[in-house]
């Protein structure tokens, strides 16, 4: 069978290495449209792994399919910012025009339409993915055109290129976004400093991780360097999955040389010769440009053996694509995914700096952190530490979206007030700002004088603005659905708890919730925070807790007065019976007489 031969070729191109399974599956699916049982079995036997291993990986990642999904696989981004731009209306419109239901494949096998978690295009939404290619700025007209193209069977490579145009939207530039960068300059500066000298500058800089946790970068690099072992790895975390964040996309689009040089500098300091970029599947469009950039850097001796002619400075980078799993932003889940497994967080400690990729000492740094490391190399640690605040050195790039006239990227020295950002992005009559995504914090106007900084309002970069007319209950409900969809399922509290949070909020949305559900929500949020295995579960209750504390009327107007309304809807429970009986008259409904 031709498909199986193709699969074997794909496997061999990746040296029949089981840790490449996710990449092989992704490539196989790009060829074949889905992973059939035959494909899965051929892969398993060629790789020498149990077939169940292949199955478990396929079933874990949202963008891998073990059933045919159509030649056109359309996924609407379902972040709250897409919704605020009318995404759901467009989604319904497309379903109607193509006569489909959500998730269903058309009878001719042509097309399926569904929702997906935030695709990182919040500043140019509503957005979608068509066969994993990002489509931006959807309008009713564009959706109609897409329906026509699907009906006519036009290949996606022949769709108008402006559908796929992704803008940088840099609104405020500073050290990183604003400087004219001479490729290789940071590498040469680091080489001049020497391995220890560069580490000393990193210590002086007080650079802290930009992915949200704010761990001191020099400590990570030094711990990795000092960990026993011959091989070490530098991993760039580009799994930018936090809804509302898109700065890493821009850094990798227009500042990739800085990111790659930052990785090489990390390798130089930590003693690693190999780097891996974990690029989220939603940014598939960046793969070829990044590969081309790496090739160019290799030609210019900025990558590879003897970087910039420095004896013994060898470093090169591979790019791995994710396949739709927010949890892979967690560093140990990311490493599992890099090893070709489902992305489930490991027990920590040991931390990746001692036991990481393939069990070797590994530095995992955010894209922006690595770009910032080039600043330290160029200008020295003292200069770097001179900007921002005492505990938050340097600049921070914010991804601003939602109710404002100028969404996009804003780079500020740390310490900027929330109100300043709001002013700059053209937001007025603001009810709330969600900083750092659903797992972050919801701020109200009385808090807008607070500062963006690790010691005040820490953030991975998302900054979603909600105007006065927005319903913060629906925001919290959207976030609850997000967490339930993205929970990896490893630990009990998160697997079941995120589903219970989602269902309780849905019950309130249906007008059947009471104070009982509120109490349950708060109790569950605390349980999740205290007992979950990783940050996903620990923060999954934050949005509902914040929203209840700060936007109580949005909940209260939905609550029934009574103590409790049973969760079981007796009339709904009869749906199947009515279907079987072929009845839908008044007498076939409970409560019809009332």
């Amino acid at each position, binding site marked *: 069978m031709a498909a199986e031969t193709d699969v074997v070729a794909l496997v061999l191109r990746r040296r029949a290495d089981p840790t490449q399974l996710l990449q092989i599956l992704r490539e196989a699916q790009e060829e074949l449209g889905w992973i059939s049982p035959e494909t899965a079995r051929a892969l398993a036997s060629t790789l020498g792994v149990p077939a169940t291993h292949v199955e478990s990986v396929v*079933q874990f990642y949202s963008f891998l399919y073990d059933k045919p999904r159509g030649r056109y696989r359309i996924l609407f981004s379902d972040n709250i910012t897409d919704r605020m731009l009318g995404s759901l209306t467009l989604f319904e419109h497309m379903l109607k025009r193509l006569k489909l239901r959500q998730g269903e494949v058309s009878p001719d096998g042509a097309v399926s339409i569904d929702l997906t978690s935030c695709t990182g295009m919040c500043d140019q939404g509503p957005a979608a993915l068509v066969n994993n290619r990002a489509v931006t700025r959807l309008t009713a007209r564009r959706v109609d055109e897409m329906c026509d193209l699907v009906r006519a069977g036009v290949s996606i490579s022949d769709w108008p290129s402006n559908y796929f145009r992704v803008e940088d939207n840099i609104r405020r530039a500073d050290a990183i976004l604003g400087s004219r960068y001479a490729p290789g300059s940071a590498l040469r500066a680091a080489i001049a400093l020497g391995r220890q000298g560069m580490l000393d500058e990193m210590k002086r800089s007080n650079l802290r991780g930009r992915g949200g946790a704010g761990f001191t970068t020099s400590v990570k690099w030094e711990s990795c360097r000092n960990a026993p072992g011959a091989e070490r790895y530098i991993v760039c975390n580009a799994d930018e999955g936090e809804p509302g964040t898109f700065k890493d996309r821009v850094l990798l689009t227009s500042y990739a040389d800085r990111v790659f040089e930052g990785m090489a500098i990390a390798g130089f300091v930590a003693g690693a010769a190999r780097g891996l970029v974990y690029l989220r599947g939603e940014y598939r469009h960046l793969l070829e440009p990044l590969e081309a950039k790496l090739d160019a850097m290799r030609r210019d001796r900025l990558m590879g053996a003897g970087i910039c002619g420095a004896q013994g400075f060898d470093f090169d980078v591979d790019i791995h694509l994710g396949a739709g799993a927010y949890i892979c932003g967690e560093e140990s889940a990311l490493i599992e995914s890099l090893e070709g497994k489902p992305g489930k967080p490991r027990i920590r400690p040991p931390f990746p700096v001692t036991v990481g990729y393939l069990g070797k000492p590994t530095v995992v740094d955010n894209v922006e952190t690595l770009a910032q490391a080039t600043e330290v190399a160029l200008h020295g640690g003292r200069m770097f530490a001179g900007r921002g605040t005492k505990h938050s050195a340097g600049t921070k790039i914010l991804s601003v979206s939602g109710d404002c006239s100028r969404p996009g990227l804003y780079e500020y020295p740390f310490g900027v007030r929330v109100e300043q950002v709001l002013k700059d992005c053209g937001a007025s009559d603001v009810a709330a700002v969600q900083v750092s995504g659903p797992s972050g914090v919801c701020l109200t106007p009385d808090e807008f004088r607070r500062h963006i900084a690790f010691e005040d309002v820490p953030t991975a970069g998302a900054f979603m603005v909600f105007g006065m007319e927005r319903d913060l209950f629906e925001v919290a409900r959207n976030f609850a659905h997000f967490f339930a969809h993205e929970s990896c399922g490893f630990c009990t509290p998160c697997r079941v708890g995120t589903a219970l949070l989602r269902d309780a909020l849905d019950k309130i949305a249906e007008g059947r919730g009471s104070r009982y559900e509120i109490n349950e929500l708060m109790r569950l949020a605390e349980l999740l925070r205290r007992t979950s295995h990783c940050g996903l579960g620990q923060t999954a209750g934050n949005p509902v807790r914040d929203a209840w504390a700060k936007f109580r009327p949005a909940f209260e107007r939905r609550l029934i007065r009574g103590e409790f309304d049973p969760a079981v809807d007796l009339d709904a429970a009869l749906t199947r019976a009515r279907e079987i009986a072929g009845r839908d008259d008044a007498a076939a409904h409970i409560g019809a007489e009332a």
Partner: protein
Amino acid sequence: MSGTDTTILIDEVPVPFRPGQTILDAALEGGVYIPHLCHHPEFEPHGSCKLCSVVVNGRNASACAMKAAPGQEVEVDTPDLHAYRRTLVQMLFVEGNHFCPGCEKSGDCQLQALAYDSEMMTPHFVEFYPRRPVDASHPDVLLDFNRCIQCELCVRASRDVDGKSVFALAGRGMASHIIVNSPSGKLGDTNFSVADKAAHVCPVGAILIKRVGFATPIGERRYDLEPISEEATRCAVGEFK
């Protein structure tokens, strides 16, 4: 009062530990019960059920995954931790289909025993009632996925002890489920044997040996005779002494 170089304090009681031992193992060996489900003394820590959630020097931790260390003060039996454990057991009950009175594992089931231990009176939450077909294809072993709690002990035993990798956990979130390594997906089409370690590690009634279900009558089974808190510490003490 604090522990010494070789003891930790569990609910203010000194408990000795050996280097490299986890808090959970040290506790059980020292006769202090910490509830657990996915932990098995013969396997590496897994840390998924979270029933062994404790507070160590003010920080939340899983006792099965954290090494005992000098200076640790561990809270186990506090009212809030007790309530969390009960909620976690309730979550496991409503996530699957657990009907103790009709289950042949009743009395030998750790989930049921922990429901008693945590003083659970009702499942509390809305039942999810998932559809999980049983697999009776194997001549000697029945798989009833309705009762699976996803501790992955069978996955680990089959892979690490039996060398067969008959089971794997697939899917994500609430859609996670055990799959079987055969083209049909049925256990009968694998090389699984009733003599496998994996046939004997299930803490609940998801993997049942056929034809012996009621050899020991209900009422005379392991947790009918003594509560799990006493059984587990007695076994652990016996094992190490």
